[in-house]
């Protein structure tokens, strides 16, 4: 600053370094860095010392050393324990898993479950949030107040409490499947069984001919695409509509249907849930676990409330002139929202939305409260059975970090696409 007001002279007398802000800034940073490094080295030193006394020598080995553990190749002695067999069973295993599989496999189950909860949660909470956010601004008094009440109640109570509520008061309040010798479940037509053991419903299952039918479906897609391509050209040539989409769809449907009837066995069938002999569970059909339901429900309702506020703010931030202009053009309400307001609001909405998505995924680690085996629950079990706290925590942190980076990278990319390009 002083350089501009007081020229030459100042530049010649050298300022002592301890009064030079540039040097000081660097110095302070350096001191801070040293402090941080020393602190961490001290912490880790301590930890290694403690582990050493316990006779746990993992960290004294080199990080990289390829070796065989239980017939599997382990890259690092630090993580050798991951190749021992886990020994415990897991409630929900989207990928094949038995108790004889290594801990590594159990971790993979946890990661897949977390991704599953994250993806379902993000999609549903976005839908809920957008609807509520729009409802909040609705001119319908009741609708707007209901939305407000939902947002305020949910945003101002802890998620953990809400999860307990959905789990214990919501899902477990459903009747047991069987009490004594009697079936006590609520049975809806379908049949859909509503029980505290989950909701069991009929589900589509493959048969031996499913694979062959899949070939027909592929062929159907190819043909439909071909029809669409040819019709498009003709339409351009003749300058009139030839009902391209109708024909495309019909082609697809016809080929798929031919396959369905030509095959000796129906390629897909509907499987009904049947109460097991012991009356404790279901055989067949699809059972949605109450643990998963409670977790997804809790996360969606919670995150949805925050997203609703973001959407509301985003919509309100679109200048009023835009609405007026849309009205002047004679657009209907729904058209105005879809064509004018939301696209502009989207630009404002996406950045804060990213952090809600990140929160949702991180919050899924509260699943332990409702006994759902996602990454955090399973790694907790592994930590305890193996005593390898440091390694397990490193893995868990890196996994969540990876989830977060992927989500924000994706949304940043999307954000770039929807931003106005200045010309």
């Amino acid at each position, binding site marked *: 600053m002083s350089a501009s007001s007081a020229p030459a002279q100042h530049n010649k007398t050298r300022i002592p370094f301890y009064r030079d802000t540039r040097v000081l800034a660097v*110095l302070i940073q*350096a*001191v801070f*860095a*040293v*402090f941080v*490094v*020393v602190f*961490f*080295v*001290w912490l*880790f*030193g*301590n930890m290694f*010392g*403690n582990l*050493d*006394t*316990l*006779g*746990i020598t993992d*960290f*004294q080995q*080199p*990080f990289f050393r390829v070796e065989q553990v239980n017939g599997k190749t382990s890259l690092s002695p*630090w993580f050798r324990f991951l190749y021992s067999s886990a*020994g*415990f*069973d897991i*409630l929900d295993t989207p990928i094949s898993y038995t*108790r004889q599989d290594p801990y590594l496999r159990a971790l993979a189950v946890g990661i897949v479950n977390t991704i599953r909860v994250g993806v379902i949660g993000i999609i549903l909470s976005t839908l809920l949030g957008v609807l509520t956010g729009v409802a909040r601004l609705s001119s319908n008094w009741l609708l707007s107040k209901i939305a407000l009440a939902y947002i305020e109640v949910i945003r101002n109570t802890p998620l953990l409490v809400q999860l307990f509520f959905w789990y214990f008061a919501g899902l*477990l309040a459903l*009747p*047991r499947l069987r*009490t004594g*010798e009697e079936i006590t479940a609520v049975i809806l037509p379908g049949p859909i069984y509503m029980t*505290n*053991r989950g909701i069991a419903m009929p589900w589509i299952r493959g048969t031996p001919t499913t694979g062959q039918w899949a070939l027909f479906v592929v062929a159907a897609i190819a043909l439909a695409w071909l029809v669409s391509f040819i019709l498009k050209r003709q339409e351009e040539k003749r300058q009139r509509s030839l009902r391209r989409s109708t024909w495309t769809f019909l082609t697809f449907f016809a080929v798929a249907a031919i396959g369905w009837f030509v095959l000796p066995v129906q390629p897909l069938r509907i499987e009904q849930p049947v109460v097991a*002999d*012991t009356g*404790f*569970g*279901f*055989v067949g059909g699809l059972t949605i676990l109450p*643990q998963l339901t409670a977790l997804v429900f809790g996360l969606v309702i919670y995150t949805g409330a925050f997203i609703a506020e973001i959407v509301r703010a985003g919509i309100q931030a679109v200048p009023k002139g835009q609405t007026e202009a849309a009205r002047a053009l004679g657009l209907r309400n729904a058209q105005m929202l879809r064509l004018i307001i939301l696209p502009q609001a989207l630009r404002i909405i996406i950045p804060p939305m990213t952090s809600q998505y990140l929160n949702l995924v991180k919050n899924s680690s509260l699943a*332990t409260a409702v*006994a759902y*085996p996602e990454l955090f*629950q399973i790694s*907790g*079990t592994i*930590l*305890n*059975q*193996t*005593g390898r*706290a440091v390694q397990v925590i490193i893995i868990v942190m890196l996994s969540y*970090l990876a989830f977060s*980076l992927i989500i*924000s990278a994706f949304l940043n990319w999307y954000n770039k696409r929807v931003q106005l390009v200045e010309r």
Partner: protein
Amino acid sequence: MRKSYLIIVSLLLVAAMLVTACGAASTPEADQSSQPAPAEQAPAEQAPADSAPAESAAQEQPAGKSTLETVKERGKLVCGVNQAVPGFGYLTPEGDFEGFDVDACKAVAAAVLGDANAVEYRALTAQDRFPALANGEIDLLSRNTTWTMSRDTSLGFDFTVITFYDGQGMMVRKADNIKSLQDLEGASICVQTGTTTELNLADQMAAAGVTYTPVVFQDAPSTVKAYEEGQCDAFTTDKSGLVSQFAVLANPDEHEIMDVTLSKEPLGPVVRHGDNQWKDIVTWTLFSLIAGEEWGITSQNIDEFMTSEEPEVKRLLGVEGDLGTGTGISNDFAYQAIKQVGNYGEIYDRHLAVEPFNLARAQNALYTDGGLMYSPPFR
């Protein structure tokens, strides 16, 4: 956004560097002596000031100091216990810890510090207990912990005395009429994580060829609640734990413990591996409680035994010899433990032979009564 990436990435790098740097060093001492190195990059005057306190602090760490010294200096024993297992480790509404396992802490405090109440309790779930013991947060873990080889070896602990011989059981509803594991086909079973229980369950169900759904919780109250609410058809843990939870159930009459034992569960207090003196102290304090019962020495009549002519009783109570001082504690450690807390039988009767548990001594009777409780000689 860009900036935050940079920060995250650089933080990670720093963390990774730290981890690898420390890992490469072969011993913790080497780590500490190599500390000042990074400081050299900083201005000279700053370096000594910064690294000196860190180094001296590092030397003060428990790693270098024996548990006995730490406990004596603190004047209190820090003991990890249960808070939700009535009869064994239970936090009363008044805020006191009570139970069979809690009394083991008291006995050790009486032996080491002369005061059974010089204990600071830490309530620990099955999942929290091992990290708490490993990192020195507690001196002693007395919380229905099963002695297994991996815990003793690769987890870095030492088991002292088996104070309760147990086995894993299964609680079910009477109305469900479940008699064998096979009757549990397709059932949901509530179990607590971080236990031997969840591993035994997996083993035994696989061996019986029964498929089931494990519903896993982190603490006893949630596990029991989920079972009670009907989330699970059965609830499994050590039989002692099951009996204990009857005290918590709203309608205990509707439930029963199946006549099946899934495993052996020898339970007892645990210490960190590597401090043999401390392990000896805890072990022999606990043995002294059993020896007390063998000789009929109780908290009431112990003073009469001080004049006993029996040489082993004299050595046990510290009237003769130097068994206590030889271990680094006072010679009357056993006297203090039995006097203030009671002998093994008294402790058992006080907490477990009462309503609503009424646990028979069975395997936990003295060997002279056909049980497994047996103290090596005090000599």
